[in-house]
């Protein structure tokens, strides 16, 4: 009955949380009048309790790992250990200034250095930099490194990056940000990249290829070694988009597959929280030949202890990607996670993520859902297509996704990859129980039943959430992006 307002609407002129700001009135000192603001910014005027209540209530309107099964394909929504949060937020870490002297940074640097080494070892690369702040920035760094490599060799004719059609949108977008043209590669009927097409596409213009393996189609690229040979023989390099590393962590190493540079989404495989959209961390690993180009700073170690490696140590680096050291607090969380797993735990991640995915896929197929690559193993995720349901019942993948919300499950990724019609990309992760998977299967079966009996119920879902289906067209057409006092 009680509608939640905007925090602005809850304000009243002159109200504020008085314990939070200095009690002295403002003295602008020697600041010249013309440099000063003349009207105060429009910000909420609310009490401390109002703030706490408002945002506590807002939070309750979210689905999250801590409250729901969240099988969002490609996103690896697994449990984010609470210890990571507690330990990264110890006062000693929170109060550490990024420019603090080396002697006052040994505790933090030790974590960075050890995580660099662990990630290097589990991916089979030669070195790792933790500075990129998300997967896409990792991709940027990686492709920029490829570019720097060709440039350093005077190899200026390489202007293209190859990207499979199933690739995540960040791949082509990144290639363009690095000044490349994108050339798409088709997928064959079994979900692998079309090898013939690859052979035809490579050449002296090929700077490199960006691959996700297992791919975003949920299957392992079986001819990866041949692909690596083809690209390398043509003088190109291989970029590994590590968004799906969870599927093979410790079971198969990108370095062994022939990749020259990779990124790892620490906010996926290493279980740092997604935070409703970030922050993440896109650690980047390089083979021997790309090592000199890794972004700075990195943690190094010499006889005096740990220290930062900067421009001085890494003159060929592609440079800095952030003012300081990337998302340091995220790195600490990933470090805690990695330390709790150890080598054995990392392997288990892949094993149980894969077990859960294959179980779910097998059971859904048995229930009559169309698994898109039925002849393939699922990696840590797989695709079902609701093409048939869409045609017969006029109920789309989106409708089913929305109805799942009513059942208390977050929807899988819908309509990605783009090449599969009416698809749901389902990734259960290793931290979910079998019972949770069974419940999800039961919900999908029940919804299909509903779609047969009462399709409108499904088409107009969700029904039990804070809002019903939103008018996205209006949102984009009648742009309302900012509150203003009326």
């Amino acid at each position, binding site marked *: 009955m009680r509608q939640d307002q*905007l925090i602005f609407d809850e304000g009243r002129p002159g109200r504020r949380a008085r314990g939070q*700001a*200095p009690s002295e009135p*403002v003295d602008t000192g*020697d*600041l010249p009048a013309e*440099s000063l*603001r003349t009207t*105060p910014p429009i*910000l*909420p*005027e609310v009490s401390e309790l109002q703030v*706490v209540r408002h*945002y506590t209530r807002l*939070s309750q309107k979210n689905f999250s790992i801590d409250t729901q099964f969240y099988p969002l394909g490609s996103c690896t*929504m697994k449990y984010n250990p609470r210890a990571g949060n507690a*330990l990264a937020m110890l*006062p000693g*870490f*929170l109060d550490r*200034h990024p*420019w603090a*002297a080396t002697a*006052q940074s*040994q505790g933090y640097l030790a*974590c960075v250095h050890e995580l660099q080494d662990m990630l290097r070892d589990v991916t089979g690369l030669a070195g790792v930099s933790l500075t990129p*702040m998300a997967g896409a*920035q990792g991709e940027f760094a990686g492709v920029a490194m490829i570019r720097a490599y060709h440039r350093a060799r005077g190899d200026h004719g390489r202007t293209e990056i190859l990207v499979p059609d199933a690739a*995540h949108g960040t791949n082509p977008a990144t290639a363009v940000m690095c000044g490349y043209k994108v050339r798409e590669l088709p997928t064959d009927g079994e979900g692998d990249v079309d090898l013939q097409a690859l052979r035809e596409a490579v050449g002296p213009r090929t700077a490199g290829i960006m691959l996700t393996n297992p791919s975003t189609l949920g*299957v392992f690229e079986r001819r990866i070694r041949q692909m690596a040979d083809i690209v390398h023989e043509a003088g190109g390099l291989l970029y590994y988009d590590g968004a799906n590393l969870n599927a093979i962590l410790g*079971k*198969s*190493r990108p370095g062994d597959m022939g990749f020259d540079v990779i990124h790892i989404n620490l906010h996926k495989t290493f279980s740092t929280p997604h*935070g*409703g*959209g*970030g*922050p993440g961390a896109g650690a980047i690993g390089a083979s021997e030949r790309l090592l000199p180009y890794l972004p700075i700073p990195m943690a190094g170690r010499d006889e005096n202890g740990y220290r930062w490696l900067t421009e001085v140590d890494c003159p060929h680096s592609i*440079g800095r*990607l952030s*003012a300081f050291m*990337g998302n*340091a*607090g995220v790195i600490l969380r990933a470090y805690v996670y990695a*330390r*709790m*797993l*150890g080598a054995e735990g990392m392997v288990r991640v892949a094993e149980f993520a894969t*077990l859960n995915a*294959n179980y779910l896929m097998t059971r859904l197929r048995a229930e009559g859902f169309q698994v898109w690559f039925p002849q393939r*193993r699922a990696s840590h995720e797989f695709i079902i297509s609701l093409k048939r349901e869409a045609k017969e019942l006029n109920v789309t993948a989106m409708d089913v996704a929305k109805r799942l919300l009513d059942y208390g499950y977050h929807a899988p990724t819908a309509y990605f990859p783009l090449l599969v019609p009416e698809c749901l990309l389902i990734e259960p992760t290793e931290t979910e*129980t*079998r019972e949770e998977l069974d419940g999800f299967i039961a919900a999908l079966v029940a919804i299909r039943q509903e779609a047969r009996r009462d399709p409108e119920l499904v088409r107009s879902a969700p029904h039990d959430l804070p809002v*019903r289906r*939103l*008018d*996205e067209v209006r*949102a984009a057409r009648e742009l309302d*992006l900012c509150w*203003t006092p009326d």
Partner: protein
Amino acid sequence: MPFIPHTEDDIRDMLAAIGVGDVESLFDEIPDGLRSGRLPPMLPALQEMQVTRLMHERATRDLVGPCFIGAGAYRHHVPAAVWQLATRGEFYSAYTPYQAEASQGTLQLIYEYQSMMCGLMAMDVSNASLYDGASGLGEAMLMAVRANQRVRSGRILVADSLHPVYRRVAETVVGNQGVILESLPLDAGSGVVDTAALGAIDDVVAVVIPQPNFFGRLEDVDRLVDWAHGGGALVIGVVNPLAMALLKPPGEWGEAGADIACGDGQPLGVPLSSGGPYYGFLCCRRSMVRRMPGRIVGRTVDLDGRTGYTLTLQAREQHIRRSRATSNICTNQGLVVTASTIHMALLGAEGLRRVAATCHARTRELTAALSTLPGVAPLHAGPCFHERALDLGQPAAPVLERLAARGILGGYALGQHDPALGDAILVCATECIEASDIAAYRDALAESLQEAA
């Protein structure tokens, strides 16, 4: 396997359902040579208790006394409520709000954030965040290139008073797309852009103006904006958002205001935390919104006409537009924005203004106290916000080391960027600095200077 719930029964039953004999079989599509037998030896797995002890020890090791370093990251009071709320599981462990109906909490919050940022910057629209201030400046430059369609030169003028690391990061971001960064020179005596030397401007995409600048000094933003606009260039303001509670915001600079405002949100509720996660904010004119990188939330209605919030203008983004997106950014800094929004709501306009003014006052007190020491003097004439460059009269780096040994983080050595400033440091005092801290710094500095002499 601390986080895996499977029992032996589960494993057996699930394998049976799949129809394979063991877990290893699930990996049978991976070619033999690529299934790694074993990982190289790694640090051993720890129980939560053990890693807790390790991290407590490491965190304590890095703790020191009062911090007078700024240079892009500032120690401010963050109300306890801020992160207690932001780390609630529903915010902490949610994904990007692609399923709007199941993400109204985060979506409404981002809408509020956008509104607050617009308020603080006096701009029309804000996105939902970029990675940080420095990389965000790179995105702002690319956006300017897209937006200023009359200029195809790719030339961007950057004030030499901008944080030098920001310039380097922006260079990394834009360098592969034919954008050329050129310098707008500094007046050495005053530490601000030499407005007297401004010539006519031509064929320039944009001009980048910091406020306050790297040295804590205030630029003549009105004049610079009008000059840039006069020459057909766009203006990108790089500002400390806390300072904007007190100083003239980018939207009000000069006749027409800056076109783009960006910077780092760290001063608004984000702990120092070794440099991150922070977030980059980005605001612009309404007319440029379709050129913007990053996510944007819009207000709309649901089937029943009830207000709701959703990601909008997604056709700009990589997951829709792919190679023609306005940026490759996907994951941004959502949780930090969550905290920062709560922080701004708690402080409000008056609170932020007081914090800003107190920082200014403390910095005046600090620089006055330190300048009483022989050989120590401000490097630049004129007012500063909450940082100031001081000439120590002797090489600064060893002095800072001696201060650190006394438990005082004394400032940022300017010689790192300009060998000519080897004797100078940049000091900063925020509202967290008390009179006793300033006295302690002065005494420690007096000793440290003498030790060398």
